[in-house]
């Protein structure tokens, strides 16, 4: 390898490295101080209150809104039956006698001929 080739390689490498270095963001600050593009205005900055509002208030608000949307239908419907939690409601008899209590009291002894089924869950 001749000295000339070595020199050429060194120049090429350093020139490329310099170009890459200049285009990195670290150098952008240096150029900004010197010159600013149109519309390149960083603005006045945020106060503590605004920062809290944007980064805490809005996420918490969204969280609350979504939680309400999820649980509101169940709250409106009221309690529902869950196996193993017990029973709370008054008895209800569909297609039963008009005066249920009296009918039960005055009913004759159940016939032993009837059938049916029992189950538990």
């Amino acid at each position, binding site marked *: 390898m001749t000295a000339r080739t070595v020199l050429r390689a060194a120049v090429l490498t350093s020139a490329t490295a310099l170009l890459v270095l200049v285009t990195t963001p670290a150098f952008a600050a240096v150029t900004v101080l010197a010159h600013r593009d149109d519309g390149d205005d960083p603005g006045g900055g945020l106060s503590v209150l605004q920062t809290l509002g944007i980064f805490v208030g809005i996420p918490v608000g969204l969280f609350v809104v979504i939680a309400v949307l999820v649980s509101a239908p169940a709250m409106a419907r009221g309690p529902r039956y869950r196996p193993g939690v017990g029973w709370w409601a008054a008895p*209800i*008899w*569909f297609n039963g006698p008009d005066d249920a209590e009296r009918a039960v009291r005055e009913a*004759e002894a159940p016939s032993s001929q009837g059938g049916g089924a*029992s189950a*538990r869950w």
Partner: protein
Amino acid sequence: MPAGDAFSERQQDDVVRAIRLARKQSQLPVSVYVGTLEGDTRAMARQLHAALGAGADQAVLVAVDPGARRLEIVTGPGVRRRLDDRAAALAALTMTSAFQAGDLSGGIANGILALAEHAHVPRSLHTDQP
């Protein structure tokens, strides 16, 4: 657990509709009791069935105790020929599998429809022929 109605309006409609369908489809009078069955649940359910009065012979009572997780199906002597105990047990299975999932009204409605499905319609002779 706060006090409240056992079923919402819509759930009650579902049960009532199933009862009406059973009557229309297979002339099966079904009565549904949902509440506590004190003492011997089977005896209590039969007591309730007897309280149906004159129609008890032909009627089916479905008694559900959600607190004790007990289900009793009582068939009258007259209807037992159309709806045997095996069909009642099958309907009971339909209901309890829905109850396990917490669907009280849906289980009741489906169980009533299963009962109606299995109840043979008594054939009235000589009415459909000239």
